[in-house]
């Protein structure tokens, strides 16, 4: 059940797609809600970036004297969106931010959603040099710049020495995305904290029994090599019919270069699972959670796990799509 708190001209309105009598009544004035999603920027790491679409309301919310009685609809409103499968006190927050007016037609009033800009627009400036500084320490410095707390409990503690001089001003989340991906790390932000996570670490574990919808499994298109400049990966099988993946690294020695390229190769070629689950509690909301399950719907059973790199909350279709790389074997 979707719960939307919308502030219009200083007054809060409590809305949903269906009339809900909970601790308070949530009026059925939400028409559609685009699924919020969190997606990792590269197939081997980087920023798990949130993206939000829009939300549409019935005209009554703005035009009726029973509700806001503000017509034409206002330009911007503060909004918080929650979800619950049972009661109001158990709701999980999916989004807080601003709804900005997008347009209206005779059926609906549409707003686009804008979350808080992570890092507040901070940049990493041209000329900043990192010489033999660990990945964690770079993140520590940048977290301070971005005004965020930092959690590196699941990051590597060694073999992540950074050698890099910034050649142009870069937005901080993009810089950290490229940097973390080069060391097969990922990061996400949650409630004011930046979490740096090794792609091979579990950020908690959960097992899903039979309670999931028919799901699908795939792999990325094969690579012949992962390259950086003239260096090429050398681990695992080579797929000569595959393409080359060019990447930017932030290391100096050939040994470190090879280690990064081989690690990227390994993560990239892991199978990708797209697990579709109902909106049942507890909701999976933390990236890099290890989700494991037994799928008995195939010719033979499949035992699989993934580390979540993408979450998509499709409320209209009553499903959450958890996507991530992992392992599978006969069950």
């Amino acid at each position, binding site marked *: 059940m979707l719960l939307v708190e919308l502030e219009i001209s200083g007054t809060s309105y409590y809305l949903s797609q269906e*009339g809900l009598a909970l601790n308070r*009544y949530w009026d059925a004035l939400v028409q559609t809600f685009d699924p919020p999603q969190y997606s990792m920027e590269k197939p081997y790491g980087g920023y798990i970036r949130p993206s939000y679409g829009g939300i549409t309301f019935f005209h009554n919310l703005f035009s009726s004297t*029973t509700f806001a009685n503000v017509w034409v609809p206002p330009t911007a409103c503060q909004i918080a969106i929650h979800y619950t499968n049972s009661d109001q006190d158990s709701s999980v927050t999916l989004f807080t931010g601003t709804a900005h007016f997008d347009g209206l037609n005779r059926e609906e009033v549409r707003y686009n959603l804008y979350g808080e800009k992570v890092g507040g627009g901070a940049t990493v400036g041209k000329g900043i040099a990192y010489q033999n500084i660990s990945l964690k320490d770079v993140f520590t410095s940048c977290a301070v710049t971005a005004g965020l707390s930092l959690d590196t409990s699941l990051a590597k503690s060694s073999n992540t020495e950074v050698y890099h001089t910034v050649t142009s001003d870069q937005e901080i989340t993009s810089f950290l995305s490229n940097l973390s991906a080069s060391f097969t790390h990922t990061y996400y932000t949650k409630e004011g904290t930046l979490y740096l996570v090794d792609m091979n670490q579990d950020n908690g574990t959960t097992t899903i029994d039979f309670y999931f919808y028919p799901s699908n499994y795939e792999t990325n298109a094969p690579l012949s090599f992962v390259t950086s400049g003239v260096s090429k990966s050398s681990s695992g099988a080579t797929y000569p019919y595959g393409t080359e993946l060019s990447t930017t690294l932030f290391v100096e020695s050939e040994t470190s270069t090879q280690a990064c390229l081989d690690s990227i190769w390994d993560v990239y070629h892991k199978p990708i699972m797209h697990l579709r689950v109902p909106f049942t509690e507890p909701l999976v909301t933390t990236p890099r959670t290890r989700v494991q399950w037994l*799928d008995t719907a195939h010719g033979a059973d499949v035992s699989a796990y993934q580390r979540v790199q993408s979450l998509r909350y499709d409320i209209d279709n009553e499903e959450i799509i958890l996507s991530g790389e992992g392992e599978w074997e006969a069950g």
Partner: protein
Amino acid sequence: MKVIYPDKVSGVTAEEQHANYPDDNVLDEHPKKVWAATSADSGLTVSVNGGANAVFLAGCSATSLTITVKDSNVSTTVAAVNYDLKGIDTYYDFFTDFFTNYTSYWIDYTYQDSDHFLVFDFLENTGSTVQVGVVRAGAARSVYEPDWDLTEGFVDYSITRELNNGAFYHRKRDIVKTFSGSVELERAGDYHVIMRDILQVEGQTPLAWRILDYDNQSWAIYARLQGSPVGSHNTRDYSVLNFDLIEVL
């Protein structure tokens, strides 16, 4: 069959009300958006403009109540009676549909051509607090009972999806009643009153209905039309009106 039209309720005052579920909620079109008292024994006074002889409550949690008709001074009692689901009073006829824990009441009373008050005292309750979803009062427009083809069913808004192992995910949502049938009405009279003065004006706005069949079984339902009604002018003076009602929650 009867329908309250137009609604003559001009206001309500409750003895007590939950901060998030105030008494004005009974004036909207959503029975689930209730007025909730803060105790299991409470009252509601409904102000009604003149020209009314029926009152309807949807989503009422009380199983026993008294209703007192007061004149515009609020001090003079026109008539009062206590009753519960087991009795039918000769002064007040009431019809309920209580086969769920969501009760609708239709109560006829002597026509009042002046402004008056209906004072409800809810005595027994199925929950810890009294709740009422919707109140409507006004003139009961009466037509013949539906023919023997009256049907009753459900529409289930629940969500069901097949899981990977062939079992089902099910999220129960509201299940509402439907009634379909036909009535044969005098074309120059009731047929055009219903079609032109009420249904064409209100369209799919929910109204308070009392459906009564030839066995004197009755249902009180807050419902809207599903689609537009259609009539057949298949006799010289009478027309058959087909209707399809769906409950509104």
